[in-house]
Structures are given as C-alpha cells and as structure tokens.
C-alpha cells in the first residue's frame, strides 16, 4: 500500500471513531437550540432550522438553584479531599522510608482501606450511611452531603496524591529532616508546593467526580431545594413521559462546568485517571 493511502485510512478510522464518540455531545448541543415542536418532529441528529433559546431560558430558571447547590457541595469537598488526601499521601511516603515490618504492615492496611474507599460501589454503603447521617442530624443538609462525599473522596485524594508525590526528590526531604524539621512543616513548606501539578490533577479529578456524583445526593437529599444538578436533571428524564427540548438544555447546563474543565484542563483530569492505574508508570 502506498504511504499516502495508508495515512488516509489511518485518519479515516480515527475520524469514524471520533464521530461515533461525539454523537451524544453533538445531539445535546444542537437539540438544546431547537423549539419544542422541532425537537419532537425532527431527527435528533439534524441541526435546528431556526435557533431558539427558549429551552435554555426555561431550564436556567429551574436549574439555577441546583447549580448553586452543586457549587456549594463540590468546591469544599474537592479542596478538602485533595488537601487532606495529600497529607495522608505524604504519610505513606514517609512510611516507605522505614523498612520495619510494623510500618509496612500499617501501610498495607491503610493503603487497602483507601483503595477500598476509592473503588467500592458507593451504593453498597447505602443503609449504614443513611443511618449515620440521620443520627448526626445531617440528613438533607449541605454539610451532610459534603461529609458523606468526604468519606469516599479523602481516600481517593490520598490514593491519587500517593502517585504524584513520588516525583519529589528524596534528597530534598532528607536534607530537611537532617535539619530537624518536623514532617508537618516539611509537608507544608516542601512537599505540598512541589507537588502542585499533582495536586491540581487530584483536585480536578475529584471536582469532576463529585460534580457528577449521583448516588450520595439521591439518598441524602429529601427536599427539592437541596438537589444538586446531577439529581435535578432527572426531572427532564424521558422515562417519566416528558420528552422536551428542555432535556438537552438541562443536560448541557449540568455538563457545562465539567466539560469546560475537561476541554481546558483535560490533561490534568487524564493524569488523575492515570493515577488510578499506578500513574501509568511502567504500564
């Protein structure tokens, strides 16, 4: 085969995959600008004949509160998880210095625990979680949802940061230890500033995960005013008998923040994803 043909077949294959993969986001984008009549009468994949903003206008009003709720929940959750997780990760790092049997056992147990918290089907903790939240009086409050998310995402933060912290040169930390600096101070002055790119990756990964988290608010929110966007969009579900252009506009509004983060800071998100598989090192 001639190289030119080969190269064009190569790009053709990638183009086909890309088109298939982009169909849903394309459908979401174009149908949000159709009128209600057009959404119901024209194929989903055909662009609107006339662009209208009626869907966005009607959805924005009812999604404003959920969007604010999501921000109130996601911002503290992600920052706290990434930061406290980073502290935990540095602890693992210091444990791996000492080669005593006890510290390696502690490290294994803790590491298994944070992995369990990261990957466990969150649904499986439904009953005890609800009971815990009720007993603390946290049901249907922001603090309750944040607290419940922290149970899963502080360990996630620790797991991801454990991968990123390994890039810091040991000699730097050893030098600080020689001077008698405490680990807490070393973390604040050396480790944390130096692992900033890793911290951003962890932060962004957790922002996207918590923004899209469906189950925790589904269980812990009991009043409509407390719903975050991931739950609020359900009222536009076709399964309840209503198929409107609102569905697409609502989906777009619910995805605009994570999608924008993905488009502009996607490499950090991808690095976060890589950390789930051991940072991609040696794979």
């Amino acid at each position: 085969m001639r190289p030119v043909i080969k190269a064009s077949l190569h790009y053709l294959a990638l183009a086909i995959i890309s088109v298939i993969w982009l169909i849903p986001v394309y459908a979401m984008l174009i149908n949000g600008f159709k009128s209600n009549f057009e959404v119901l009468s024209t194929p989903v994949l055909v662009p609107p004949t006339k662009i209208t903003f009626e869907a966005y206008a009607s959805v924005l009003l009812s999604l404003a509160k959920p969007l604010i709720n999501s921000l109130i929940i996601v911002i503290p959750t992600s920052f706290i998880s990434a930061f406290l997780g980073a502290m935990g990760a540095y602890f693992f790092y210091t444990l791996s210095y000492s080669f005593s049997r006890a510290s390696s056992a502690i490290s294994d147990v803790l590491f298994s625990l944070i992995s369990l918290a990261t990957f466990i089907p969150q649904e499986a903790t439904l009953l005890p979680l609800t009971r815990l939240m009720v007993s603390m009086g946290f049901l249907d409050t922001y603090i309750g949802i944040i607290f419940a998310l922290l149970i899963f995402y502080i360990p996630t933060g620790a797991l991801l940061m454990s991968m990123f912290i390994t890039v810091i040169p040991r000699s730097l930390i050893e030098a600080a230890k020689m001077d008698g600096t405490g680990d807490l101070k070393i973390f604040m002055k050396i480790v944390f500033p130096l692992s900033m790119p890793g911290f951003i990756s962890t932060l962004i990964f957790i922002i996207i995960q918590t923004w899209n988290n469906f189950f925790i608010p589904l269980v812990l929110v009991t009043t409509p005013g407390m719903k975050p966007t991931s739950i609020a969009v359900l009222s536009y579900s076709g399964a309840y008998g209503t198929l409107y252009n609102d569905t697409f506009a609502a989906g777009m509004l619910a995805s605009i923040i994570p999608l924008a983060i993905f488009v502009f800071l996607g490499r950090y998100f991808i690095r976060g994803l890589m950390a789930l598989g051991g940072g991609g090192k040696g794979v």
Partner: protein
Amino acid sequence: MKKGTIILVVPTAVFSAILLYLVIWNAVISFMNWSLLNSKPTFVGLETYATVVRTFQFTNSLLHSIELSVSLVIIGNILGILIAALLYFLNSNKARSIFLSIVIYPLAISMAVNGLIWLWLFNIHIGVDWLLVRIGLPQIPWLSSTSTMFPSLILVTVWAYTGIAALFYLAGFMNIDKTIVEAARLDGTSAFKILYKILIPNSLNSFIIATALLFLFSFRIFDLPYVLSGGTTNIFLQTSELYMYYLFTVEYFSQATAVATIITLVATIIIIPYALTVIRRWIRR
C-alpha cells in the same frame, strides 16, 4: 514516630475508618433480622442470605451486573487496544491528545446526563435509527424491545468507559523502547505485525489495569441503568445495585444489607489485590 507525622494521616485514617465502619455495620446487620417493625433485632445467621439468594430478582440482577462487567471488560479491552494502536502510530502528539480526549470525554459528563441523551438517541423514530434506516441498515429497537434493552445498556457503557482502556494501553505502548519499534519499521514490518508481535505482548500491565478498572467502574454503575430504565424496577436492566436500592426503598432493610454485603465482597476481591500489587508497587520504590 513523631506527633507531627501522625497528624498528617489522621484525616485520611478517620474517614477511611468511617468507611470501614459502614462496611462492617452492613455485614453485621445482614446476619440479623432487623426491620422497621422489629426493634430488637436478633442474630439469625445466614437466614437472610438464604431468603434473598432464592429470589428471582437477586440472581437476575447479579447476573446482569456480571454480564455487564464481563462484556465491558472484553469489548473495552479489544476496542481499547485498537484505539490505542491507532493513536500510537500517529506522528503528531497534538492529534494524539485530541483523539484521546475524544474517547475519554464521556467520563467528564455525569452518567445521568449521558443516560438522558442516549434515551433520545435510542428513540426508534428520530434517534440514531433514523440515520441507520437512511443508509439502508435495519432499524434496531434499542430500549423498546426486551431483547435489545440490555445490549443497549452495554453499548452506552462501552461508549462511556472504553477511553480508560485506550488510555492505559496507549501509556503502555509509549513506554516500550522506541528503538525496537523503529528498527522493526525500518525492516518494513507492517503496523499490524508490530502491534501483535511487539506492542501487545509487552502490555500485560496495561491489560491488568484496564481489566480491573473496567470491571470496577461497570460493577458499581448505578445512574446509567437507573436513568435508562426510569427507576429501579425494570427487571431487564436491573443490576445488583439497582435491586439493592429497590429493597431499601421498599424497606426490606435486612435483605438490602445482605445484597450490599455481597456487592462489597465481589468488589473487594478485585480491589485489594489490585491495590496491593499494581498500584502499591509504584509507591514502594
């Protein structure tokens, strides 16, 4: 160990301990006959499990969960290798990262929103079927027929998660010594031959990671079938998580904890070895 060092791990340890407490509480309750009416629960051993595993919904939903996970692991790995290979042989780094982002972006959107959009795409009149019919392909009933309902869920799951496999295979391929691949190319070896003689045999770690992650992500999936089936009761799309949530909503608490414990157990069997071998190795150095 100094006090300052211990303080570092306290938040992580406390929240992990809460999680462990939740898991253990769940397991303990599953051995008791706790319900709303029974204020003094007593130990009943495996009785709840015996009751629940005999129900049709339990086996049905567990089979669905496993079928979904196994399908995703198989299809995701194959597609992941193919996409990673297509990306690997690109000469431009920029194009590579753009195409990679395209297969990964579904992970940035909530599965609930993805589900809502796919509900429309699965519409047999104006969804993707409209296009299939126009280019002369048969119309597929998707969610309107009980036989294509579950494959439709698998399709969306594959669309959503294959990016993970592609990412790890690509990372694996990129780590293989460039000089070997270059030498093979100079000898006129075809790309396909390089793929299955050099790239794939050196990607065992990528395979393990992709398999574990695809399994774990699909085994915990809840929002997608929840949205696609419009609730928890559609037995053709009911996964273990949906069934457990259904048991909770109808207040069969003991049975819900039993199912939850089984789900946790299956996940743990994968998580712990994965964590201690694959992930752990890279921190220990």
